């Protein structure tokens, strides 16, 4: 169990986030966020509770909510679209999650563990899902009516303007220069540091990959100079 000082520090970090005052103006306790929240229908999670805990600076309960509750949010942001005070409970959850990750909280590790493969693909190529991967069999939650449009999926996909993103082969084929630029962004925005705090093994694998790509890029640059 964390000490009060540790919990206070975590709260201060959430409170100090530059987005905080934009996401939280106050609260009329109307409950429209929780009423409209898909996660609240199924889990012990209530956006209004998150807002109240933050607004009343209940550092113990905030810490407690970060152990499990905040990970139930689907980040659909319906709460933000409905709040009559223009708060964004989902935005606050996003800040809390980032702080949880930064502090290497066990709850964050537990939640992110199954997504190792996704993270690997996402950080190394910049995307992990291409339209041709989206097949109705993989998404039972689409419901039975999806069969009515299934026949048109190929045509519909052609409407996506960026041609290279339409298939697995092309989506995962990223130019060397773009890759290297993206790695710089991951590094400078703290994504890689966050990954290291969450999963050291995955971080090592990805860092090796990045180093290799950077070397390849340097070699390519030299080749250009030679020509």
């Amino acid at each position: 169990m964390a000490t009060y000082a540790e919990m206070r520090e975590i709260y201060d970090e959430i409170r100090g986030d530059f987005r905080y005052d934009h996401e939280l103006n106050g609260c009329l306790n109307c409950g429209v966020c929780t009423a409209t929240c898909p996660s609240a229908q199924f889990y012990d999670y209530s956006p209004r509770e998150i807002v109240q805990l933050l607004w009343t600076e209940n550092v113990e309960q905030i810490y407690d909510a970060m152990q499990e509750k905040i990970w139930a949010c689907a980040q659909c942001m319906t709460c933000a679209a409905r709040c009559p005070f223009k708060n964004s409970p989902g935005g606050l959850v996003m800040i809390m999650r980032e702080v949880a990750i930064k502090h290497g909280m066990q709850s964050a590790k537990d939640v992110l563990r199954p997504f190792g493969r996704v993270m690997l693909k996402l950080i190394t190529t910049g995307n992990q899902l291409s339209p041709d991967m989206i097949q109705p069999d993989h998404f039972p939650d689409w419901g039975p009516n999806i069969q009515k449009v299934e026949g048109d999926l190929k045509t519909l996909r052609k409407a996506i303007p960026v041609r290279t993103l339409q298939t697995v082969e092309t989506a995962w084929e990223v130019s060397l220069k773009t890759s290297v630029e993206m790695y710089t962004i991951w590094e400078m925005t703290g994504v890689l540091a966050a990954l290291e705090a969450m999963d050291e093994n995955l971080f090592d694998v990805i860092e090796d990959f990045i180093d290799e790509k950077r070397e390849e890029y340097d070699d390519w640059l030299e080749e250009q100079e030679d020509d």
Partner: protein
Amino acid sequence: MSDTVLVVGAGPTGLSAAAGVASVGKKVILVEKENVLGGAPILSGYAKLVPSGEWAKDAIGRMVKRVEGDSNITIHKGTKVTKVDGDAGNFNVTLSNGTTVNVGAVILGTGFTHFDSINKPEWGFGTFEDVLTTTQMEQMVATGKITCPSDGRVPERVAILLCVGSRDRQIGREWCSKICCTVSTNLAMEIKELSPTTDVFIYYMDIRTFGLYEDKFYWKSQEEFKTKFVKARIAEVTKSPDGRLLVKGEDTLVKRPIIIPMDIVVHAVGMDPNEDNPEISKTFGVGLEKHGFLERGEHYTSTFSSTRRGVYVGGSALGPDDIDTCISHGLAMAMRAVGDLNAMVQKAA
């Protein structure tokens, strides 16, 4: 210099102001854009008024009759003011019917516009027949029979949603409309009185039955009429396969999401600035405050002044207010107008 007073708007505020000015022997020109006098309570067919319990057509009807029978008051119905030249004590005013009048002071009782529930589509107004506004429900009360518009059945459960078009930053209504809590508790009692088998639920963020309305309306509606109050803002109104309405909210005291079947859902619509306010502001040369209501001048020693000298503003043109308060504003503006005109006459002599 003229000591005639122009009163614009013949709702509770304007009717009170006109009668007030006439009662001290001054001439009044009363201009009303509609063809009927009485303002919102008459035009929207309000039922019994708060707090008197008198039918609107009787109470406001007396105010209309008083003005119509006064030889000091000239009434222009179906008429708008199109131009106001000059200064305090000497305004040259043009009306849309071609008349020009010279007046010394102008009193604006131009009122408000009911919030249009179409602007909150998730609450089902305009989509489901059994979703109504408070004014529509009052009209139903006036018919003496409570039934679902869709099929005429007697409703088992009626939900009244408070703060529709009030206290909502999403749609730019950052004000409390002040009257809807009391109007809704009153309506709940009227429904129960006419239809004893119907249960009424009121969904609220806060209950603001201000002043003496606390026990006469809020408590009474619970104690004598068994109205149920649920602290929840409804997220959406949908329809179940059996044709009943479903309201979805969070019971914030029990702290769980709820979906409840209803037969009629009533929107307690708030008070918007008069939709004509941009035009009124331009025609009369008066300012608007940040929400779009008419702006007050200095209040403590120049009570009910607008931002233009010699033009007074009061009632729900200033912001949401109840009928009794609007009537007081009307009389206070009459006092201001006549007092200022008398001072000008004395100074000129």
